[in-house]
């Protein structure tokens, strides 16, 4: 059994860890709340965008666009969004597993896989595995602003239009609700898959409203489709980064809460053990005194 001094030291060390985890929990909770509000208030925009996408894909005469058609490129690209910091449970592990699926898929299809990364934890994992990184996004923290997202989107659409990549997916942790968030790949290009995703996840689509043919279009259908596709790509990139940041902070809140609870439990147990040892010492000293007194009598 550890001595009283060791018990006290251990209790102090655990109390310090508890303070750190509690602080991290509070910081993550505050970040999570800000991101959750942004996620919540953007839901209407994505529903309206889904309505627009629904109209475009239900046109009687299909609209052709290079972003919606598959190309023959032998390169696939994935953007992997992980975290810059640890202590967020299995958040990064799930992303690694999802990335593994893409590596195997590219191998099976005999295609090259370009990996674009956000998050130091993913970077170190890929370096450890000896995988080549095409680009690291480090010019923003957690969520890019709209200009940065535009640039990312326009760079990839440019590559797709030139036939340099034939696929673009974003591996990220998607946030569905407080109780549900999991690692997923959102296919961005070809854009038809993104439209499928937008229309199936939307909570409000009214197919009984006017059909595509009822609308006057300005400019023409091709231009509208092209601009709408670019809008979907640009805004989906922001949405993926926001979902990932939201899920990361939520994962950290849960992990830190559990760590704080465990540390608190350990402090309580060490307190009991310390008190027991202290009481044992006092009892021993009392017995010594009473024994000495009796011996003197």
């Amino acid at each position: 059994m550890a001595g009283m001094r060791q018990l006290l030291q251990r209790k102090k060390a655990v109390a310090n860890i508890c303070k750190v985890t509690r602080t991290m929990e509070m910081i993550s909770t505050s970040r999570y709340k800000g991101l959750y509000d942004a996620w919540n208030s953007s839901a209407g925009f994505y529903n309206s965008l889904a309505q627009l996408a629904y109209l475009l894909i239900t046109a009687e005469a299909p609209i052709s666009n290079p972003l919606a058609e598959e190309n023959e490129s032998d390169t696939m690209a994935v953007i992997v969004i992980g975290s810059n910091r640890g202590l967020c449970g299995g958040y990064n592990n799930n992303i690694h597993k999802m990335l593994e699926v893409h590596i195997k898929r590219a191998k099976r299809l005999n295609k090259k896989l370009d990996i674009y990364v956000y998050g130091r934890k993913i970077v170190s994992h890929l370096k450890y595995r000896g995988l080549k990184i095409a680009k690291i996004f480090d010019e923003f923290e957690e969520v890019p602003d709209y200009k940065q997202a535009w640039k990312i989107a326009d760079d990839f659409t440019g590559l797709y239009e030139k036939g340099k990549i034939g696929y673009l997916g974003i591996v990220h942790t998607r946030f569905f609700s407080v109780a549900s968030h999991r690692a997923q790949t959102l296919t961005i290009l070809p854009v038809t898959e993104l439209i499928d995703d937008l229309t199936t996840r939307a909570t409000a689509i009214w197919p009984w409203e006017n059909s595509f043919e009822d609308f006057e279009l300005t400019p023409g259908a091709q231009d509208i489709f092209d601009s709408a596709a670019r809008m979907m790509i640009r805004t989906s990139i922001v949405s993926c980064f926001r979902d990932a940041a939201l899920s990361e902070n939520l994962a950290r809140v849960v992990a830190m809460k559990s760590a704080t609870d465990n540390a608190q439990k350990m402090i309580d147990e060490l307190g009991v053990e310390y008190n027991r040892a202290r009481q044992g010492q006092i009892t021993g000293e009392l017995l010594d005194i009473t024994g000495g007194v009796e011996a003197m009598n």
Partner: protein
Amino acid sequence: MSISLGTFRFVLQTPSAQLLDCRAGFINVPAHDGQMGILRNHMPILCKLGLGILQVKDIVYEKGRPGKDKFFLVDGGFAKVSENNVIVLAYNVESFEGMEMSEVEAIISNSKKLLAGDKYAQQAKKHDIEKASVFIQLAKTAGLIKDSH
């Protein structure tokens, strides 16, 4: 003087927030090829937006509460008009509403500096220059500066 023939629902959304959801009597959207006015019973239209000023007039909130006219700077997006529902989806929307006068003056001053810049800078920042010009127009339309300012 109001030119309203009745109101319609108007929603202004960006990827980060829903900025307005109200009934309006008239809106003027910056379409890709110029301003486009919309009144009640407008035909269904899908329109690409450019850079310009979005005006929302004769605003009526819930329970018939009237609101002040609103002016926004819109930089690209879409407007969808269908069955007296107008939805504007915009990438980026800016407004002077709720700003301190000092902030407004700083924006206008920056915009003027950009507009007065040398030709090379004007070429390099073409979109920013256009936006600066729209900012000044927005300030004039919202009555924050006079035409001669």
